[in-house]
């Protein structure tokens, strides 16, 4: 699913966010990425989505090299990813349902199927009763779940969730984490960044990756489904 070889990421201002990382993620893995703030977790996810590009090394996601000049391939790659952004990136002035639909409108999904997927995703995150509420009226935790619903409704091969438990209390955090954990199946790989290390033990078959100052340590190799 993901092969990174000696990948470094250096931002234009000179900050080196990732140093010669090596990573191999198989389809169906649930990967837990921990590390302090500023260690490079978001940067890693940005590389995987083709928002940033390696300044050195080679990176393959879904067997495609992630290269800046391949705009069309990057777009295809993003279409196969279900992203949950740290800042949610919900589209204001639209309902929860419309936000979930927006993630699918340009995909090759028939209209009926699109609506079914969206409603199912909202049911799974427990927000079917908020489907027609404007997203700016939702609580923080609800908005978080709409973002997850948008990501999973498109049936992506790879779910990338950036700190989905941030700012949530323990109960809500464990709910969100369980939710993401349950979306993992043999066709769906899930990567979650967090600094909520106390949750790790709940997921014994998850892989655990620690990021520190741009370096990656694979601490535990989890099973895939």
């Amino acid at each position, binding site marked *: 699913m993901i092969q990174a070889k000696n990948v470094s990421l250096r931002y234009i201002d000179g900050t080196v966010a990732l140093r010669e990382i090596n990573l191999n993620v198989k389809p169906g893995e649930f990967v837990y990425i921990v590390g302090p703030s500023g260690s490079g977790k978001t940067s890693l996810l940005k590389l995987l989505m083709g928002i940033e590009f390696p300044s050195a090394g080679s990176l393959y996601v879904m067997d495609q090299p992630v290269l800046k000049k391949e705009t069309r391939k990057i777009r295809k*790659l993003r279409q196969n990813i279900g992203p949950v952004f740290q800042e949610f990136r919900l589209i204001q*002035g639209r309902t929860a349902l419309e936000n979930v*639909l927006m*993630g699918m*409108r*340009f995909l090759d999904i028939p*209209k009926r199927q699109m609506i079914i997927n969206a409603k199912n995703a909202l049911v799974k995150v427990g927000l079917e009763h908020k489907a027609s509420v404007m997203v700016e009226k939702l609580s923080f935790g609800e908005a978080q779940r709409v973002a997850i619903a948008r990501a999973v409704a498109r049936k992506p091969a790879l779910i990338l969730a950036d700190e989905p438990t941030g700012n949530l209390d323990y109960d809500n955090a464990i709910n969100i984490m369980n939710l993401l954990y349950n979306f993992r199946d043999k066709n769906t790989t899930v990567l979650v960044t967090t600094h909520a290390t106390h949750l790790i033990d709940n997921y014994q078959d998850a892989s655990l990756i620690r990021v520190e100052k741009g370096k990656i340590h694979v601490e535990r190799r989890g099973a895939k489904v």
Partner: protein
Amino acid sequence: MKNTFYFIKESIRIFRYNKLSNLFSFFGTALILFLLALVVGVWSISSQLAGMLKEEAEISAYFNKDVENAEDLLHIIEQIDGVRYVRLVNEEEARSRMEKILGDESDILDLFEENPFEAYFEVKIHLDKMDPVFTQISGLKGIDYVRENRDVLEQIERISKALEVLGYLVIAAVSITTLVIISHMIRQGIYQNHEQIKTLMLLGAPDNFINFPYVLLGFLLTFGGGIVATVFINILIHQGYSMLTGTIPFIPVPPKSQLVYGLSTFLLSVSAALGILGSLFGVSTSKKKK
């Protein structure tokens, strides 16, 4: 298409985001297009008029009483290069023509005991051959004097040329202004929604999907302006014709339906084209600063 309704809703939303300036550009475009239609209408009437009058280029050749056989002279004139046809207008016809022109005033002709009009040749010619034909006819034996209506015709032609130039200028000005207005509206809309656009890009949405609501809005604003302008120009033509036919019956204006049809088609297609071009231009010039 599964997103038809979505695109329309998005366009309306972008419109409402900037209701006032969008409304202004809508009515501004309508007004500009209306002015365009006015100029083009006058231009087309005048050029049709000039075209018709060109065929009225004629020379009146008066011959002296010694000419015994006017028919022979007529045949000679007919052979001259540039002459379209020649007709002999006899004294009675000359008088009845004048009666027609004078209308109600024609009673004054009764003051003459004898018919004051002379017979003459009415020579219809090609306007550009006016000079050689004129000298040749003047030189013919038996021709007393010759009169032509070139001055009037050339005057009209000059006016219609000037109107043509004015027409092109106005078309250029209207096109540029409309393109600037619409593309600016589009750029503004894209700028205000750049967060949403960025999100869609991160989700892998193609450019066409992202841009379509903006292009649709630009098209609708301009084409809508075109429709409003068309309605008003139709009202104006209708009013104008009913006034014209009442007062100055002899001006050979083109038939009303032709003008209505021509101007409406012109306005609608110009506004549609400008709408699409303007929004595509707006979209393509705002993409660089995403």
